[in-house]
Every structure is written in C-alpha cells, then in structure tokens.
C-alpha cells in the first residue's frame, strides 16, 4: 500500500510528508515519555524485580555514591562486560546455538567486545557469517541494553549535579540507575517496538540459516534468527549493530518504508526526550526546551542539507544516472535514505539503511560533520545530552564574561575546576579522531585498507575514526577495517572515546553537586531564551568547525568542489 501511495506522490512531497509524520510522532511522546524518564530516575521506590536483582548482585540501590564511586562502579561493570563478551566471541565454536560458526580471532574479538560495550557497535565482521544466535542474544543484545543504560545513567548523574545543591559530590547510585534504565525504559519500549516490527515483516525465530534450492533450480540462502527483538533495541538504544551485515538496508531487518520510519523514530525518541527529563529534574522546563531547540535545529539543518545534496546535489555520476541511487535501497529512495543517514549519524546509532560512502560529497561530508559535532544533536542515549550540556557550559562561560558576571549555568558557577574538566572533555574526542586518522594515512597497514585514493580515501579513514571515537559505529564502507591494525586501533579509540568523556562528565557532575546553587537575579544571563540557544548552536559548530576545517578541506570539501 505504501508503495502505491509514494508512487503517486512527488518525491519532494513524500520526503516532507515522512519528516512531518516523524516529527509529529516524536512531539506526541515528548512530554509523557520525558516525565516518565524523570520519574524513573527520581522515584524512591523499587520494583519487585529490581529488588530481587539487587539482592542477587548484593548492592544497596539506595546508597548515594560520590562521583568517584559512581565512576568506579561503571568502569568495573564495563570491564566485566568487555571480558564476558570477549570470552563469548572467542569460545563461540564450543557453545550451543553457534550455527556451527567459528570463534573470533583475538584482534577481532577485542574490537567487537569493546565496540558493543561502548555503545559503538562498529562491526568489522558480517553478522550472518560470523555470529551465531547465542552470541547475538546473550552477547550483543545484552550489551545493546546495558551500554545504552550506562549512557543514560551518566547523563542523569550530570543532570543531578545541576539539580542538587551543596552535597558532598553525591550524584546517585550507578547500579540503581543502570537497572532502572534497562527494566523501566529500554525493555518495555523495545518489547513494544519488536512487536510492531514483527507485525511489519521483520523476522523473529531461532532458525539456522539454511540453503535451499528454488523451484527454478537456483540456490538461495534463507536467513533466520531473533532479528526483531534485536532490531528494536539496536535503534532504541542508539547502538546500531545490525543482525546482518547489510544492517537496516537488509529486507529482513527493515522490510518496508514504514519499518524504516519506525526505526528512525526509535533511534531519535530517547535522545530527543531526555532534554524534557532534564528540564523537569532541574525544575525549569524552559531549560529543557532550549536544549531540545538546539538539538532539533542542528538536526533539521543537517537533514535539509543532506537531503538537498541527495536530491538535487552536484556530482557527475548522479547527474549521469539521473539520481544518486548508488548504494541506496530502491524501496526507500533518496529522501528516506538521507533521513535515516542523518538520524543515525546525529545520534550515536550507526545503523545504516544505505551506504554512506555512496552519498554525494556534500551529503557524505554532512554525515561526517554530524559525528564530528560530538553527536550532540540529539546524540546517543544519554551521551547526547551530556555532550550538549558540556557545550552549554562552554557557551555560558563565554556569554557570562560578555555580560560581566562570573559565568553561571542553572545556578552553578563555572570557575576554574569546571572549566578544566570541560576543556579536557572538548579536547578528548577531536584528539582521538585527528591522531587516529593522521597515523592511519601515513602508515602502511593503515593505507592498505583505503579503497579509493585521494580525497575520498581521506574521507573514508576520517569517517572511520570519527565513528569510532564518537561511538557511532556506522561505516563509510570503502575502508577495509577487518585488519589487525584497524581492529586494535579502532578498539583503543572507541574505549578512550567512551570512557574518558564519561569520567569527565561524572567529575563535572560531582563538582556541580557539591556547589551551592546560586539564585537567579535579573542580572543572570537567561539560558532558556533563543539568544542563548543560538549561541550554543554557534559554539557547537565553531568549536568543531575550527578543529576539523583543515582535514575536512582536504576531504569532503575538495570532493564537493570537484
């Protein structure tokens, strides 16, 4: 039915219509889901299932942790996650439901273990050819839930830092936050989403992949697996690791334009809703609106540019072919591919329904820029809000000076300790991206993976490291990363790109929570007005822009000007 309708609509109308439907759906759930999230993390009550779980793992969910304890709990949990996943991957051949697949080699297992624990879900392997059902369900799917919940926990801890006044740096309980995120938010939402996806044609079974001979005599590979359940959390938790190699371009993961829209909705829904929870928790919903406005504005601008580049953009090949359809699924078309690509790079998802390598240069550059922005518009579950709040601190600092007061954000003074933390945060990811890319384009094993020489090759490598450092996980394709060099390097970058910023955000949260909140006066710079929101957006773009303009100018810019 959908196919019939889109056929009679002009492409532009269809593009606008699906964006409007998406925005309407996001707007409809914004207030209720935001309130639910805020309640999830502030309610003093525990569910019976949660209490049982706390007793099993022997933690006291009501013990408020200082930021250092919170961080140690988080790192300890993540370390165990990496080791468990590593073991599962290495021992796959000896475990049930392996579909007869071999274990991962050490470099590959390290890369994937880190990749899923850090919410990156970079995949050097092909899902259907390397991972059996047990690894998918007990390994990857579990990390899809918990790594997303870790991201939300960190953001909530930061929000508590702003909301609390004069504590001794206590910012909540990691185990409680982690558990509630999974039990109260991710599990119920992804259960609903999985049912919707199944109803729309996504498969859900435990069948092995089987080879058949068709009536015509051709051989065909029929794939099976618990796809819908994994697909739901893949998008909802901004994970992005596909069950199959083709990810959301695969018809069994994403069969129709409707499932496509559902998946885009899923990957945007929590990141765009967290600002509401933030506003509620700091007791000023307008602050949430301002953050949401900046996120939505940047996302919309990126979408507009990419869609324009897709549908009317320059480039010799697309013009010769009539449209930039290379690397796209015909059942989605250009606009839906652009919408998915922008949303997946602007969040930290990284699932794809088209090959980003094939986007016209300005569009591909935009996707790259979305990630380089630090994935803050709206960003990964939790990580996006954290990143945007850190940028807000930078914006407040500059703006505060310009109005002649010691800068303060939400009643917290931004002094030397806060600026040190924020400066390190802002430095970390660009350093990883630039150094990683620079090393890779000069050393032999790095250059070996580059498919296209010249500016496009540079874009490919830059994209890979931007994706790893920002824990996105999408690949530009074109770059062969299944080599020990990239597996190890990417693993290190993913690890540092995830946990260094988390440590800094928690330190900031602790610092803020121990400060006494300063009441706002009429001399305080209001941070909920469009003026400040505009400044925040400008800071985000300028900070990133100035850092990456040189390398971008040798990659996507040169390509675009060709």
């Amino acid at each position, binding site marked *: 039915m959908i196919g019939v309708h889109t056929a009679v609509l002009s492409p532009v109308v269809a593009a606008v219509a699906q964006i409007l439907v998406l925005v309407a759906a996001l707007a409809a759930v914004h207030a209720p889901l935001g309130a639910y999230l805020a309640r999830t993390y502030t309610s003093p009550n525990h569910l019976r299932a949660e209490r049982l779980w706390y007793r099993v793992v022997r933690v006291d969910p009501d013990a408020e942790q200082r930021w250092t304890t919170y961080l140690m709990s988080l790192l300890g949990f993540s370390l165990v996650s990496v080791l468990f996943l590593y073991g599962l991957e290495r021992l796959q051949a000896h475990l049930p439901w392996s579909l007869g697949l071999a274990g991962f080699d050490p470099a590959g297992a390290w890369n994937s273990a880190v990749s899923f624990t850090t919410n990156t879900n970079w995949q050097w392997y092909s899902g259907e050819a390397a991972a059996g059902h047990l690894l998918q369900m007990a390994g990857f799917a579990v990390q899809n839930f918990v790594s997303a919940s870790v991201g939300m926990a960190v953001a909530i801890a930061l929000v508590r830092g702003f909301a609390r006044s004069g504590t001794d740096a206590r910012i909540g309980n990691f185990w409680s936050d982690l558990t509630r995120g999974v039990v109260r938010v991710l599990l119920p939402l992804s259960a609903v989403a999985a049912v919707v996806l199944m109803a729309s044609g996504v498969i859900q079974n435990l069948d092995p992949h089987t080879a058949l001979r068709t009536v015509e005599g051709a051989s065909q590979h029929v794939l099976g697996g618990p796809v819908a359940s994994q697909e739901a959390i893949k998008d909802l938790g901004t994970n992005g690791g596909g069950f199959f190699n083709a990810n959301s371009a695969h018809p069994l993961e994403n069969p129709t334009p409707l499932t496509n829209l559902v998946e885009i909705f899923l990957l945007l829904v929590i990141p765009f809703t967290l600002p509401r929870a933030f506003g509620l928790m700091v007791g000023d919903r307008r602050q949430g609106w301002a953050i949401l406005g900046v996120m939505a504005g940047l996302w919309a601008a990126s979408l507009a540019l990419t869609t324009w580049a897709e549908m009317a953009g320059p480039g010799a090949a697309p013009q010769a072919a009539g449209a930039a359809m290379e690397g796209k699924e015909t059942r989605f078309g250009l606009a839906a591919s652009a919408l998915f690509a922008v949303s997946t790079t602007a969040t930290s998802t990284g699932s794809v329904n088209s090959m980003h390598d094939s986007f016209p240069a300005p569009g591909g550059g935009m996707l790259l820029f979305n990630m380089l922005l630090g994935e803050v518009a709206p960003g990964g579950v939790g990580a996006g809000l954290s990143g945007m709040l850190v940028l807000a601190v930078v914006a407040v*600092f500059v703006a*505060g000076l*310009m109005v*002649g007061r010691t800068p303060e954000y939400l009643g917290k003074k931004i002094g030397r300790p806060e600026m040190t933390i924020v400066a390190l945060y802002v430095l970390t990811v660009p350093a990883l991206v*630039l150094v990683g890319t620079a090393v890779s384009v000069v050393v032999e094993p790095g250059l070996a993976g580059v498919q296209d020489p010249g500016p496009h090759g540079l874009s490919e490598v830059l994209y890979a490291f931007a994706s790893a450092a920002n824990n996105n996980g999408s690949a530009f394709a074109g770059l062969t990363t299944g080599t020990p060099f990239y597996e190890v390097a990417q693993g290190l970058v993913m690890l540092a790109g995830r946990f260094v910023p988390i440590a800094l955000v928690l330190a900031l949260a602790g610092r803020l929570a121990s400060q006494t909140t300063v009441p706002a006066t*009429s001399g*305080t710079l209001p941070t909920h007005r469009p003026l400040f929101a505009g400044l925040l957006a400008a800071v985000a773009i300028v900070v990133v822009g100035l850092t990456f303009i*040189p390398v971008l100018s*040798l990659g996507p810019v040169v390509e675009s000007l060709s």
Partner: protein
Amino acid sequence: MTIDIRNAPAGSAAPGSPTTGAGEPRAAQRTTPRALTWAQVRSALPGALRKLDPRVLYTSPVMFVVEVGAVVTTVLAVVEPGVFAGWIAVWLWATVFFATLAESVAESRGKAQASTLRATQKQTTARRVVAAQDTPAARSRMDLPTVEVPSSTLRVGDVVVVAAGETLPGDGDVIEGVASVDESAVTGESAPVIRESGGDRSAVTGGTVVLSDQVVVRITAPAGSTFVDRMIALVEGSERRRTPNEVALNILLTSLTIVFLLAVATLQPFAVYSGSRQSLLVLVALLVCLIPTTIGALLSAIGIAGMDRLVQRNVLAMSGRAVEAAGDVDVLLLDKTGTITYGNRRATEVLPVAGATPRELAVAARLASLADETPEGRSIVELVDAHHPSVECGVSVGSEPADPTHTQHSTGGVGLPDGAELVVFSAVTRMSGVDLPASATGGVRRIRKGAGSAVELWVRGTGAQVSAADGEQLAALVDAVAGEGGTPLVVAEQVGEAPARVLGVVRLKDVVKEGMRERFDQLRAMGIRSVMVTGDNQVTARAIAAEAGVDDVLAEATPEDKLALIRREQEGGRLVAMAGDGTNDAPALAQSDVGVAMNTGTSAAKEAGNMVDLDSDPTKLIEIVEIGKQLLITRGALTTFSVANDIAKYFAILPAMFVTVFPQLDALNVMRLASPGSAILSAVIFNALIILALIPLSLRGVRYRPASASALLRRNLLIYGVGGLVAPFVGIKLIDLVVSLLPGL
C-alpha cells in the same frame, strides 16, 4: 625632627575650611583618565623587551607558543634565507612583542603613581612616647616624655606624638587630641581633613602631614606594611596574582591552543597523504594565526588596566579577586545617612495650625533657629529666608546680633536682637528655643521648638487650655509628617505671662540626594538589589526608601543586624557589597564579599574591607561594580573576537596551502588574495596588528552601560562576534594589497 618640606601645606593644600570628605564632591581628580601616549609607549619599551624572556612568558601559554614559533621560523629563515621566511619571522616576533608591550604599558601607568607615593615614604623621625610614663592623665595634658627614634623602627602598639608641621611616622589611630591633616599625598584631595580621637575619624596614614594642633597616635601597622606600602605594591602590580576568572579563561585559551596544535600537527600527515607536503614555516604561520593570540596577548593587560581604572577613581582594591567579585554583586547595602540622603534632616515646609498664620509660624521658627547651630536649625532659617523673604522678625532690628557667627547663615536676613537668650537643647526638656527681651509690643517672648509631646507639655505648663479640637488637629499634623518619613518639629510661643500657644509644625525631612533614583534604577537593570540600612524606625525608613527608589530596607539596624543580613544573603548564594567607615562596621565589612572602607574611617574598618575609597564616597560602590563588570566583559569580548577571527584566517591560508595540488580550492579564496605567499603573510600581519590596534581598548575597557544580561549579550555578540567574523576579511584583504607589492614574495 625633620619636616618633609614637600608635603608642607604651602601651595598644594590651602588650609581653610577643613572637610571630612564624606559625601563631598571631590576637589580634584588625582589622575585624569589618560589616553595612550607615545611617551608611555616609549617608557614601556624596555619592560616589554624584558618580558620576552621565555621564563617569564611561559605563564601565558598562548604567547609562549607564538614565541616558540618565532624562534623556529627565525632558525628556518637563517638556514634557508628567503624573503617570505624572513617576513614571517619578523612578524611572529612582532606578535609576541605587541603582547609584552601591552602588558608593559598597562604596568607603566601604575609605576608612575607608585613613584609619587614612594616620595612620601621618606625616613622620618618619630617622637615615641616612653611607655612607662604613658598615663591617661599625662596624655590629656599632652605633655608626654618622648624619645626621638627613626620611623622605621616603630612597632605596632607604639605611641607617638605628632605636632603641627610634622609628618605622621606611620599608620595609626589618634588616641588623644584633634588635628587637621593634609592627606593630599595619599588621596590627592587638597583640602585638609580633621582627625580626632574616638569616633570614626581616628585613622591617620603614614606620610601625611599634620597642619595644626597636636595628636597622640597609636601605631597600628609595622613599618614596611603600611597603607602606602600596600598602595605602592598594588599600583605597581608587583603583587598581582591571577584572579579566579582569569585563570578559568586561561584554561579555555590553553585548551583551544592544544586543539589547534593538534589540528595543525595532524595537517602535515593529511598533506603528505594528499601529495602536498607543507613547509614547517607555513605550518607555524597557520598555528599562530589560529590560536587565540588576540586575547592571549591582551589578557594580563586587561587585568592590570582594570585595577588601574579603580586607582584612577581613587579606590584601592586589596586584591584583584575583590574587583572581580564586584562584578558579581547581587546585593548592595548602603547606609542611609550620607549615602542616600544628605545626612542631615532639613526643613522643607511649615504647617501652621488653625489660628496661626503661615507667616507667624515662619517668623517664630526662624527666630527660634537663628542661634541654633545644628544643621537642622540652619535649614529652618534657610527655608524661611528662601520662601518667606518678606518675613520680619517682629522685633526691633537696630542692633548688632549677639554673636556674629550666629548670623552668617541667615543670608541677608535679620539677626537676633540684643539680650536674646538661647535655650539650648537638653535631653530633659527635649526642646530648644530663644527668649527675646521685652519690647514695646509686649512682654518677654519665649519661643520653643521640639518634639510634639515635649512642646505640648511645656504649653500646658504655662497654663494653656488646649481644646480637644486643637489637640487633634496638631496630632493629625504630627502624624501626617511622621507617616511620610519626616520628623515633625512643633513650634510654640509665649508672650509675657499669657498662656503659650502652639503655632504649628515644621516638617524636617531627610533629603534624598539628587540622582539617587536613577542610580538605583541602573542597579536594578544590572540585576543588583539595593538595601538601605538605617537606624530610623520602620515608617520613616520605608518612606525614604520609597522616595529614593531602593528595593529594600533594614530599619532600626544595629551592627549585629547588618552582619546577620549579610550572612543571610550569603547563605542564599548571593554576593554582598557594602561600604562602611566606623569600627562598628568592621565585622560587616569583613563578612561582605566586597567591602569598601572609607578612607576617613577607622583603621579597623580599613583593615576589614577589601577596598578603600580615598574619596570616602559610599556611592562609588556603583562605579566599582561597573568596573568589575567591565573587566569581565572586556575579556569575554576579546575572546569572542579572537575566536571569530579564525574563520577568515582559514579562508586566507588553507587555499594558499593546497591550491597547487587541488586547484578547485581556489574557490575558497574569497578574498582573492594575490598569491599563496602574500595570503599567508597577510594573515600573520593582520594577526599581529590587531593586537596593537586593540591595546587601547584593553586598557580602557569595553564600554559598559547598565542593561539586562540579554541586552548586553546581544550587543556584545553583535559587535565582537559578528565584527570579529567580518573584520579580518577586510583587514587581510587590505594588508594583502600592500604585501603583494613586496619584492621577492
């Protein structure tokens, strides 16, 4: 004993009417705001060169990086001489030099002031009282046995005697006597001031000169750390430590520098990959252009100049932290008396009761006040003379006034007749007045003025029957005046032995200084709440507060109440500023975040505050707040400007670097710069010259007008953000037009 001739009153100070300084307009600005002059620049040159020492420069990471870049390019230019390399090296050195020059110029202004002050520090001889024979009785007789010692050997607690013509040997409190003192060496105020024991005008400053009389002074500061010593250290900047906000900004600038170091360092691998290896020279040039050199170069100059601006307004901040805190102040405590009002109640109106004419009342009030030397009394005479010029005293006027001084205020008016007897105010009668001798028109005429109840008692005492209606009318008048914040003064008269009768009420009122309402409106616009502190009762206080336009009132305030109020505000996270002079104020001054002590005040107050106002003008708090804000705004504006500049520099340099390998990048050369070499050099030159161009702004500070935070942000973003974006496009293009003419480039 030596007398410091330089400080002798002749010429500089004109002895005459000594002033207390409080609330008086300043006679002369100690230093008029100076524009940047060539002489200043020339005198700052040696200092600027000394500051190029990397061991000094490393405290500013941004400029240190530039200096390293300058060294590297110089080496490159020597190893491989070339016009381009030579020019780049020269301009990088110029960039560093302009930065040190800015700081040096800022410091030189203070140095001039310091040398003036140092002149007051001549070694003098003190007459120290021999401690054993120092008894109160001997003190009051002022004949204390003294020994002559050098002033540098004085210790805290020593007691010295200083007579007219002598220089005070150190800071201290007057413990006996009263003297007029010439403090022009410290305050720049030429009129002498009164210093006396007890009360709030007891503090004397070392280096100032006693003009008349003799005082006994207890030394409160050891030699070497006196007020003048601290002033010298402050204005010279030798004690300058970075303020918290400056440190935070430096962290931001350092992280930006690291980001750009990374961006430029990794650019070489990308360039190699792209087949266009860059020379180290070009990379250094790019780096210097990108890092925030404009603000990095001017940051310390801005801080020093901020302190200097305070000194120019005769305020000494004991720490830069206090100046910064001033910009953040949320609550301002101001004493009513002397700050918001003129300090004395003044007569503003005469209100006769039924049965008396306005003229009758005016005449009586005037007569009763002619000999009254209190400011209130004088104000009654002035009011009557101004508004009832035809008033005759109703007595014969042939003779000279009893005492010429009593008439000096009744300009052209008529004095008291011979034989008039003054009735002075006493706490028992709570009245004052005059008894006029019997004349042709009647018997002895007694006029009394005072509080309503006291006068009423007197009237009844003379046998007068006050009717209920009259009593009520008077009570209504009295209440009306009191309710409006005034003080009612009831006037009555008795002629001969007839019963006395009440004539009416004179309204005495605290008069709010002109322009106070506007100043409080400004404060409100800046987000600062003003609180008036007064000992008056609630009704009076509220009425004056409403008239002056302050936000809040602390009435019937004791020093403890004041301290409690400050603590309460601070617990709510607010920053409090206050001005004070008395010993009573010291705890509150110490507790407040910005405490401005009046120079006329006690040493306890000066010790407790973190600023001292040499003019002793409490309203200066408002200016101090503005200077604090201006300091931060200047930093913020130049940071924004500096970062915004980078975009144009990218447009200049990146195409120049890579146009040979990617010709399509020429599309980014939007300024159409002549050649890659001239483009890079023009960007470097612009980067250096903009520092030079902004030195005056950094010394003067960005213009500040009280406005809401949003309005300020919008304005400054527009000027320094958008301006910073556009200016370099124009500037680099213009420089390129010249640079492209250079031979060999």
